[in-house]
Every structure is written in structure tokens, then in C-alpha cells.
């Protein structure tokens, strides 16, 4: 019986197409080559004939990442409502389909597949963790569909099917390093969660440090699972006597880290911590009293004094509550929907190929300031900001880059970064 089944399977396997090894033997630094070479991408089923067009929001509404990703979906929803109120995109109303990624990469892949194949959406907005993006990438390339990804990440990626509206490393981490150097810091201690973003970021930081005469006093990772104990690590940090700490910890670990940091007697005055994953949303959870005076690196703060931001913050509070805060990923998500709208209108088409062809130079007066799509690598030019956490739990800009920084996900314009990517 069982053998019969296997025999049946073997008989059926005869008709599938094989990968032509000769034509496509080697790996490519760009992952996008996969879809291009296979040529077997499925036909799009997007229907734009009616007076509405479907788009998908894919965020974790359950699981550990729901904390952060819910806020992203809220600002996306606000953007969609605004666009619909203003007449839609190319005269068509947006019909939003929301899905839960459940904080699991495999679920992100499944739901992305569903949105593209079953719901036939024109574009998908969402994702947060690198693993969720890596999980979705082959789905979008295989189906030749579009993903707008709103979170700062470790770089070293560029897919023609993804638009990255958060910062890449040269728009967040490198400016932070430059800022520290400018402040006279000569040595660093690196603390991060044990996963890809901190590992990659720290590799880049070490390469930068070697070039810039910054001494790296230590490098420590804690398991991503919560419940990590920081006693040992903080002792190492304290004993190192480093000028500053570069913090790439993720989520809950920050709470334990900063509590311990304060309790051994370290402070922002003696040894400042620069964090790249703590935004306004996370400050309350960590405890303002533990964070006051510490630094963060982002491209947007709620306190930015631009007309677009004042409207964005006011609208968001009106919609979701006065006590709510806005943060960088929320703003990048909001911006991503407008960038898609502007590109569609420039291309006068919802088709993926047309959007890809017309994306270069599309800009938007975002809450963070003017942003512009780079058509080559699908990232956007952004202004880097270093901020300081204040008593009121908000973050205020201490320093900003003189102009929007062109995205360079592979750090190809930095000679010291050679061999990293």
C-alpha cells in the first residue's frame, strides 16, 4: 500500500521542470537572481478593472513581535484611510486585507503567499524582523510581487521585489559612530542579541573602528529568548572602561540590560549607551528612569519639528489615543504606502514591472523630511538623527546629518568595508 503511494509519487514527478544547472551555476551576491533566472514566475492575478484595488498589510498581531508590529499596522491603516479619503490611488479606493504573521517567519511566508495568490493584492506592506523579511523574499521573487518593508535592518540585501523604507546601516549605524567619534569617544563596548542583525552590525562597526582608530573593548551577545541574566555581561562592560556602549539588543533584553546598567552604578554621563532598537514605543517598557540621557540612532522622532510630522502625530493621536506615541518604524510604514502611491501615479499603472521601472527618484515629503527612492537598490535616501531620551519619555534630536544620506546597503562606497558583504 505504502509502496504503491511512493510509486505513484515517482510516476508523477516526471513532468516537473528541472533547474538548468549549466545556465545558472553560481551564487550571486544579489538574491534577486533566483526569480529572474528561473523564468517560471507565476502569472499575476491582480485585478485593477474595478473601482478599487487590493493591498495587503502583513504584520505580527500575535506572538512576541506583536508589541512592535501592531503599531506599524496602525500607521499603515491611517495612511490607507487618508489616501482613500483623498480619492484613492489613480482614482481607485484601496481595499486593505490584513494578515497576521504571528511572529513566525514560516507564517510570514505562508501569509505572503496567500495575499499574493489567493487575495491577488497589488502590493504587500509589512514585516519587521530580518527573519520575517528573509522568509518572504523568495515568495515575492517567485511570484514577482511587491513588498514594502518599513524597518531599519542590517543591510547587505537588495531585491527588485522589495522596497526598503527603513534605514540601512550607512543611514543609522555609521552616522551614530561618526557622532561618537566627534564627541571624543575613543573606545566602544558592543552588546547585542544573539542573532543576525547585531552580528552583522557589529562586524561593520569593527571594520569601521579599525579604520577610525576606535578601540573595541569587548563584544557580548545574549540569547534572544527572554530571561537572559545580564550580571556577567554588565560586569564585563563596567570593567572594560569603554568610552561608550553600542547597543543592538532586541526587545525585552533592553529592560534587563538598562536596569542592571543603572544598578551597578553606570550612567549616561560616565558611559553613554547608543541604542539602535529603542524607539518611543519601547521607552515606557524599559522605564524612563532607566533610560534618561541615553542615546538612540534613528531617522525619525516624534518630537521632529516639521509640518508633516505635526500633522502625522496629531492625526495618529486623534485616531488611536492621546497617550500614544509615534516611532521610526511607524513613520517609515506610513511613508511606504505614500511612496507606493506616488510611484503608481508616476507609472500610471499598478503593474509590478511598471512600478519597478518608474521608482527611481520618486519622493515624498514625509514626517521625517524629504525621502527619495533610489531606483538601483530600492532603498530610500534618509536623514540620520541622533537623539537623547528625556524625562518625558520622548526622544529629542541631538544631532542630524546635514542632508539625506543616499542608501548604500552593501557599503560599496566605503573602502574599509571591503570584504564584509
Amino acid at each position: 500500500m505504502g509502496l504503491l503511494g511512493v510509486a505513484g509519487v515517482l510516476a508523477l514527478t516526471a513532468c516537473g521542470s528541472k533547474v538548468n544547472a549549466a545556465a545558472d551555476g553560481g551564487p550571486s551576491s544579489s538574491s534577486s537572481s533566483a526569480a529572474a533566472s528561473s523564468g517560471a514566475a507565476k502569472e499575476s492575478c491582480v485585478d485593477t478593472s474595478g473601482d478599487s484595488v487590493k493591498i495587503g498589510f502583513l504584520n505580527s498581531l500575535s506572538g512576541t513581535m506583536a508589541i512592535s508590529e501592531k503599531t506599524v499596522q496602525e500607521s499603515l491603516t491611517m495612511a490607507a484611510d487618508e489616501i482613500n479619503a483623498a480619492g484613492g490611488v489613480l482614482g481607485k479606493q484601496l481595499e486593505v486585507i490584513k494578515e497576521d504573521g504571528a511572529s513566525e517567519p514560516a507564517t510570514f511566508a505562508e501569509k505572503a503567499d496567500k495575499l499574493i495568490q489567493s487575495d491577488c493584492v497589488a502590493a504587500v506592506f509589512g514585516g519587521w524582523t530580518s527573519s520575517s523579511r528573509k522568509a518572504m523574499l523568495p515568495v515575492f521573487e517567485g511570484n514577482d510581487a511587491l513588498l514594502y518593508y518599513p524597518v531599519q535592518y542590517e543591510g547587505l540585501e537588495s531585491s527588485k521585489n522589495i522596497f526598503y523604507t527603513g534605514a540601512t546601516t550607512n543611514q543609522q549605524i555609521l552616522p551614530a559612530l561618526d557622532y561618537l567619534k566627534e564627541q571624543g569617544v575613543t573606545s566602544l563596548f558592543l552588546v547585542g542579541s544573539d542573532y543576525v542583525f547585531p552580528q552583522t552590525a557589529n562586524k561593520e562597526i569593527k571594520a569601521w573602528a579599525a579604520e577610525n582608530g576606535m578601540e573595541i573593548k569587548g563584544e557580548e551577545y545574549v540569547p534572544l529568548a527572554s530571561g537572559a541574566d545580564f550580571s556577567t555581561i554588565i560586569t564585563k562592560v563596567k570593567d572594560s572602561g569603554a568610552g561608550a556602549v553600542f547597543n543592538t539588543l532586541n526587545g525585552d533584553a533592553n529592560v534587563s540590560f538598562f536596569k542592571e546598567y543603572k544598578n551597578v552604578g553606570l550612567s549616561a554621563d560616565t558611559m553613554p549607551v547608543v541604542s539602535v532598537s529603542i524607539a518611543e514605543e519601547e521607552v515606557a517598557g524599559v522605564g524612563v528612569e532607566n533610560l534618561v540621557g541615553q542615546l538612540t540612532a534613528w531617522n525619525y522622532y516624534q518630537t521632529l519639528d516639521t509640518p508633516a510630522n505635526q500633522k502625522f502625530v496629531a492625526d495618529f493621536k486623534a485616531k488611536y489615543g492621546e497617550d500614544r506615541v509615534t516611532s521610526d518604524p511607524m513613520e517609515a510604514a506610513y511613508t511606504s504606502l505614500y511612496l507606493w502611491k506616488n510611484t503608481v501615479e508616476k507609472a500610471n499603472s499598478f503593474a509590478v514591472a511598471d512600478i519597478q521601472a518608474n521608482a527611481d527618484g520618486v519622493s515624498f515629503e514625509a514626517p521625517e523630511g524629504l525621502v527619495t527612492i533610489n531606483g538601483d537598490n530600492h532603498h530610500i535616501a534618509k536623514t540620520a538623527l541622533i537623539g537623547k531620551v528625556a524625562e518625558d519619555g520622548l526622544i529629542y534630536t541631538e544631532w542630524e546629518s546635514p542632508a539625506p544620506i543616499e542608501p548604500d546597503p552593501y557599503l560599496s562606497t566605503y573602502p574599509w568595508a571591503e570584504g564584509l558583504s
Partner: protein
Amino acid sequence: MDVVVSQIFTGLSIGSILLLAAIGLALTFGQMGVINMAHGEFIMAGGYTAFVVQGLFENAGVGLLLSIPVAFLVGGLLGVILEMTLLRRMYHRPLDTLLVTYGVSLILQQLAKTIFGTQGKSVETPTWLQGPIELFGFDFPKTRVFVLVLAVVTVVGLSMLLKATSLGRRIRATVQNRQLAECSGISTRSTDRLTFFVGSGLAGIAGVALTQLAPVNASVGQAYIINAFLVVVVGGIGQIKGAVIAAFVLGIGQAALEKIYDASLARILIFVAIVLFLQLRPQGIFNVRTRSLA
């Protein structure tokens, strides 16, 4: 030398957290054979209790201290409710209690998210617990000394309860020989319920202690439950001193391994060490129960 002292302190500190998380389990698992996976969520409930109680007081320190007995009550009540509604009918199926209480733990976590939001809550550290304290010429964080003292007080209190009170005698009698205890007129039903109250209440206290070191959020229980069970497994059933020794040995081992390797590898090595240890002593460090048949 400095390194050794500071790492031993770190080990004791990690051990005291493990001990607080595990001591209640040692009691309920030891007496009733119930594997309560929701114990972690009782810890979580203790943490949220500290958050709520502290919010009621101007003075963070008063709030924190008051929240200790309140959290004991909250944890204890949750435990009694669980015991009376579900576990009571399942004492003859100890393995199944594991899965049932896992279901309870999922629901309590989601409930916490619904009530308190997904973002973690911060419990303030009172001024008298902030910063380091100098002991034997070394600086130690006051919060960790506080947790260590709380763990010691809790364990001493518990063993006094078991030794000196009639409830304690009933509990010990039931642990050692349930049938005999019943014959000598002890209501094992009410003893079970009281044991569960005390054991779960201790989880509440653990939750308060953790607020000084870690975030209060829905998943805090998950972070400690597995290690707490390992402490009980290594310590052996039915005796508190087994859990105490196991917790501090594991804590110091973890601290040493973290110093030598890194935190992730330390956890893996600890697991391997536990499996090897059970090869030598499958019944744990201590076990009062004689091996009964079938």
C-alpha cells in the same frame, strides 16, 4: 580573585532567582506530582501585581514592599482556582496535568496582553534599592542583594512553616505517605489545596522579585519555567534543601560558563551537565520517597 568573587556573587544571584521560581514548584510537584506549567504565569501575575500595587502608592518603596504579600495572595488564589477547577480531577494522570496547565498558561498570557497591553510594564526601583552597595570591598547592585535576601527569607520562612506548623506537618506527612496520612485523619484534599496555595503564592513573590531585574510582560513566565523545572528535577522530589542546592549550583555553574564562554553556549552546556548528572543520580540530589512499585 576579584573575578572569582564577583562571579560567585553573580552565580548566587542567578541561583536566588532560580530558587524563587522553583521553590513553589518543588512543593506542588513534590507533593502532588502535578507538573504545573502555569507556574510561570503565576510568576507573571506577581510581576503585574507589583506594577499595579506600586501605582497605588506615592512611594515606590512602600508599594514594592506591600506588593510582596499581595502577590503571594494573588498567586495563591490563582493556584487554588486552578487546583479546584481542573487539577483536582486529574491527580491520577500527572502527565496530563502538564498539558492542561500548558493550556492554562497560554490563556493567562493572552489575558495579560489583553489587560495590560503587549508592551512590557516597568516597575520602578525605589531609591533605596538603586545603585551599588559595597560588601567585603566589592560593589554589588542593591537590587540583586535584595532578591538574594528575599529568596533566603522565603526559603527560611517556608521551611519554618513546614517544620513548625500543623499545616507543615500535614504537608510533610502527605508527601511521605499519602495513604497513611489519610488513615491518621489528615484531610489530604484540604492539605493539597493549601499546598497549592502556598506553592503558587511563592510564584507570586518570585514575580515581585523579578520586577527589579527584568521586564514585566506576558512572556516573563516562559523565560523561567523550564529552568525552574530543571532545578526541581536536579534537586529531587520532596525536599526543599534539594531545590536550594540545585538552584545555587546551577546558578554558579551558569555564571562560570558565561564568563568562560558566552550566555547561549552556557545554557546548552548546563543542559548537557544535567543529563549527565541524572546518569549518576536519577532520583536527583535528594529523594524522600522510596521507590514504590508500579
